[in-house]
């Protein structure tokens, strides 16, 4: 039986100043999985996502989204960057940031109108941030900022979602709220790829996992490959994680 892949990465190599940070990655992400990418700091997790999205130009290899190049499939993909990658003192409101998610479908020059605003308000509602729609973004807590980013991705109404450490620096309530939304997305048949750090929660949150440390160590269903052997290979040291059944 042939599986349908949302993302296929072939022989991808990315280098900063001629020093490879990702080395010959082959990766196929099946459609409809909720996948996390785990690996130590500097393993190239964020870089992998950025290379797939064309934000960083790889020195070798190809990426395809449902069999076509990313540039042709942009509208199918939503991206949540790391919260720390932007300046939250930027003069704008929560609603306005969420509206940015609609810019992709608008294309160049065209401005967002009532339809886009309505979509943005709906997305804010979904992440429970509607009361804060007119709040200056610097006046939001870390968890609220992360929800705003999530809402911005939701408003794109994509098929594939990439999220770079969405649980970083958020409290337990927000983490629960975010993972519930991710699970809903998967239920709706979407593919979700998350850079994740907390190994304890992997079996609980995700059904698919990729181990990465400059090279790809392993990829597959959590129940099959999330074991001490792969963790040790990825993190170097003798890593043991107690997996709760």
């Amino acid at each position: 039986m042939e599986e349908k892949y949302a993302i296929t990465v072939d022989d991808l190599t990315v280098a900063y100043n001629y020093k490879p940070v990702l080395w010959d990655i082959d990766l196929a992400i099946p459609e409809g999985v909720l996948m996390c990418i785990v690996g130590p700091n500097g393993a190239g997790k964020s870089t992998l996502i950025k290379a797939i999205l064309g934000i960083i130009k790889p020195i070798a290899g190809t990426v395809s989204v449902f069999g076509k190049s990313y540039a042709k499939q942009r509208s199918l993909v939503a991206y949540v960057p790391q919260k720390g990658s932007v300046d939250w003192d930027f003069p704008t409101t929560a609603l306005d940031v969420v509206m940015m998610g609609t810019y992709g479908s608008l294309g160049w020059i065209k401005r967002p109108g009532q339809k886009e605003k309505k979509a943005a308000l709906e997305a804010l509602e979904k992440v429970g941030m509607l009361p804060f729609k007119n709040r200056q973004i610097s006046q939001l807590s870390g968890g609220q900022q992360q929800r705003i980013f999530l809402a911005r991705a939701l408003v794109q109404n994509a098929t594939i979602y990439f999220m770079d450490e969405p649980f970083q620096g958020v409290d337990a309530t927000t983490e629960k709220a975010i993972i519930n939304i991710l699970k809903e997305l998967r239920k709706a048949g979407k593919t979700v790829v998350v850079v994740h750090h907390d190994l304890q929660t992997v079996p609980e949150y995700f059904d698919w996992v990729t181990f990465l440390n400059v090279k790809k160590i392993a990829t597959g269903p959590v129940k099959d490959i999330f074991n001490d052997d792969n963790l040790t290979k990825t993190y170097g040291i003798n890593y043991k994680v107690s997996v709760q059944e």
Partner: protein
Amino acid sequence: MNSAQISIQIIVTLVAIACAIPGTFLVLRKMSLISDAISHSILLGIVIGFFIVEDTSSPLLIFLAALTGIVTVILVEFIQKTGLVKEDTAIGLVFPALFSIGVILISKNANDVHLDIDSVMVGDLSLAPFDPLLINCQEGIADSCINLGPKAIWVIGIILLVTLTLLIAFFKELKVSTFDAGLAAALGFSPVIMHYGLMTVSSVTIVGAFDAVGPILVVALMIAPAATAYLFTKDLKRMLLLSCFFGVVASIAGFWLAHILDASISGSMTTVLAILFLLVYEPIITSIIVSSIVGIGMVLYQYYDAAILGGVSFEGYQLGEKLTYIFSKFVFLDYVYILGIAVVMAAFLIYILPKRGLIYGYYKVRQQKTEIMLLVFLLHIRNHAEESERHVKHLNEHINWQRLRSQSIVDLAKKNNMVTVSADNIISLTEKGADFTEKAIDYIITNKDTEIEEMKDDFFLFRG
């Protein structure tokens, strides 16, 4: 006002707006210094252009100058990408190199032409009205040209028009690529294109404003209004409008300041810009200083005027001698007058200016402290039903506060109708007090703040 004065004011207004727009984005992208780099290195382009066409007003000069601006940005990025030095160092390496080549070329080859270092450094606004744009000139016939007014107005006007058109067309793209370059790239709005677009507009604007205000002050016109507006507002559109407004106000005020002081126009404009920024950043201290200076100036002027009317001739007097004469007429009432003006103006400025600065910050911290105290107090009352715990005197021992403080907190709570004090000094929560405490506790524990939203406007405690 004569027509030259009007022309200069039109020019500075256009320059101020044309600079404030790209300047706002430079400030938001934390790239303010790149404008300094561009403004210096374009000298090289201007000089090379001049050697090619031997004419300071050729469009080729503007083109080459703008090109040098872009080259500066590319060089800075190239050096930065080696990873050996940081961006500020790269800027510091590139522009002095290009600028100095320009300076050498001028001093070697252009000694006898109108391209001297002085006018290049601070611009030459006062002469701008007398350099008209002439078209349709016929060879050999005097006065056959059609005079279209000062050339500077046309040059900067066209640049401003293009800038405005680009801003309106690409506002959303500029916004998203400035806020979140990663998202912009993923959505297909190349941040590289936006970056170089902005750099091109900045370069062309700087070139256009270069003649009028020179390379140092053009930086002030790009950065200071945007930095001031940034303190004022948290909305990008309003920030753009405000920086244009501040730029224009400072430029026109600066022009008149220069007129009064008989000093350099561009220098006065920058001084006003600096004062504007200080006023917003530190309103109280600055407004007191500025108003005192204005007060003293007004008194001095009054005496000067009176002396001239009274037939005193200041001809041949040095400025110092004039001042000595005027100060010798000072009476006690004048100090009172100055103080009066200073107080009224300072009060006015503090009233209209936004709530920032040291003193306000101190006030805010105190206010927060009081609010927390109030909450602690209300909680205590809520948690203790027994009367002995709710006696006014008892509070001193129980919450371990000084008498004065507990009294002021009780007063505050009473004033807000949150507690009542019975005849025998027993405190009880009112309905409003109980409700407020409930909500506040809920907020602090769950951090879920839908309920608390409306309360936030009245209390510092729940803000950021």
